[in-house]
């Protein structure tokens, strides 16, 4: 238990002034603008939007600037800001099948309608520091295909589904649960699990996904498809009664395809794990898809004995705002608690010493 303390206002005020100075750094160096952060640290912005759970590039850039680039602190700032805004409603579910694709790959099929489109990827880079970037200069120009654009690219899972080799996604409820409105109860439906994972900490999900691959809940996954690009967000305003596009957002989607031997009710078939993030979040989307599949263990009649398959363990510990808050609350004054523990230790030692005499 921590207790309220009084005083220290002056020191706190000075500490915040010192923080502001530290944040700005050497004032002879030009200050970063939000547009620079948005344009040049775009993947950091994407992560803050996804885990901060608000798609707004400028706000995420501001949060990153204020947090000196600390992603988890920036995510906290964005989450706090969102509570100040009213909720106008919910969109129609975005149609990732109609995405304007900028990247689309499959590790399961080499030859698929629409083709494999690498897009702006770090794959196949050598991960050697590029000192050319240390000197300012224009980047290499990208290339435009001389031919027309891309062919339609149906989802890989649709192709398998037509052949009856993969489970259907299932319809679920018309109105999905919303864990920003209702507390999480167990067992949680897949809608709530996916919402939780979408907001969840990338590092935590990555480690869980990795554990499931290494044998703590073996899921035999294939990256059926990863696609990144723009989707329109549609909404039906009350005053209109029909759907309109309110904007375009970038999303990354991952469809994991997993082996499934079947059960007494279900024939052998492929099963699915699903990941979806705001912006370009490929690592996060893949980890999310693996953990989504792991969390479906019980639904599919598999033994759920590993951490990645344990709903309470995963869903209660995925949120980095909550986790950071609880870990960091240890910094608050625990003087009374500690005094009583100190008393107890002294008493026990005294009693031990007396018994030994």
């Amino acid at each position, binding site marked *: 238990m921590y207790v309220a303390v009084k005083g220290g206002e002056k020191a706190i005020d000075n500490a915040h002034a010192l923080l502001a100075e530290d944040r700005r750094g050497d004032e002879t160096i030009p200050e970063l603008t939000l547009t620079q952060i948005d344009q040049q640290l775009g993947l950091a912005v994407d992560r803050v939007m996804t885990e901060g759970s608000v798609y*707004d590039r*400028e706000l995420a850039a501001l949060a990153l600037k204020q947090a000196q680039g600390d992603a988890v602190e920036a995510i906290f700032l964005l989450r706090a800001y969102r509570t100040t805004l009213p*909720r106008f409603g*919910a969109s129609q579910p*975005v149609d990732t099948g109609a995405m304007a694709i900028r990247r689309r790959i499959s590790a399961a099929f080499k030859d698929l309608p629409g083709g494999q489109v690498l897009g702006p990827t770090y794959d196949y880079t050598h991960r050697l520091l590029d000192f050319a970037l240390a000197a300012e200069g224009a980047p290499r120009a990208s290339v435009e*295909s001389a031919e027309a654009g891309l062919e339609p690219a149906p989802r890989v899972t649709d192709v398998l589904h037509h052949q009856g080799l993969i489970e259907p996604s299932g319809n679920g409820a018309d109105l*999905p649960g919303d864990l920003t409105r209702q507390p999480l109860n167990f067992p949680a439906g897949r809608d709530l699990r996916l919402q939780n994972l979408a907001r969840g900490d990338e590092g935590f999900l990555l480690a869980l996904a990795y554990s499931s691959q290494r044998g703590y809940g073996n899921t035999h996954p294939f990256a059926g498809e990863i696609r990144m690009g723009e989707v329109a967000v549609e909404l039906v305003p009350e005053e209109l009664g029909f759907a309109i*596009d309110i*904007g375009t957002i970038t999303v990354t*989607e991952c469809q994991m395809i997993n082996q499934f031997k079947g059960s007494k009710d279900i024939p052998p078939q492929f099963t699915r794990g699903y990941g979806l993030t705001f912006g370009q979040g490929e690592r996060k989307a893949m980890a999310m898809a693996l953990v989504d599949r792991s969390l479906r263990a019980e639904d599919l009649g598999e033994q759920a004995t590993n951490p990645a398959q344990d709903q309470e363990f995963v869903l209660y510990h995925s949120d980095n705002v909550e986790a950071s808050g609880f870990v960091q609350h240890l910094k608050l004054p625990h003087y009374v608690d500690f005094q009583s523990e100190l008393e107890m230790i002294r008493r026990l030692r005294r009693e031990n010493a007396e018994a030994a005499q």
Partner: protein
Amino acid sequence: MQQQTKDTDARRQWMGVLAKSDESHVVQLWAGLSDLPAWEYLRRPEVGLVMVRGRMGGDGGPFNLGEMTVTRCSVRLQNGVVGHAWVAGRSARHAEMAAIADALMQDGDWRARVGEKLLAPLQSKLADDRGRAERKAAATRVDFFTMVRGED
């Protein structure tokens, strides 16, 4: 009934173009529209959130992915025509222009002019940007399979 569907489709289309265009481009073209009629707010620009939904597995039941910022605004022209706007982001100016443009596009006297001076260039810019992005993506398309096939 059919006419109504056609009108709705046309309105959906221009509202989408106004929302998806860059604010700076709308502002720039707005300067070319002169002598706009007087209008008043029915609903002042208001910033809020919309919960963006996805589908489990891409094609299954819906789930809540995360929110996005949006600004909505409604206006009424002098002649009573009402325009609405819902625009991603937090720009009051963008939402206001989109709402006025929505009203003008429903007004027979204004439709042709606003369509030509505002909507057409916005739409063609969106199409150009999209085309360029698509051609750049297409240049990264991998042909793993131009060799002999037949194993299947």
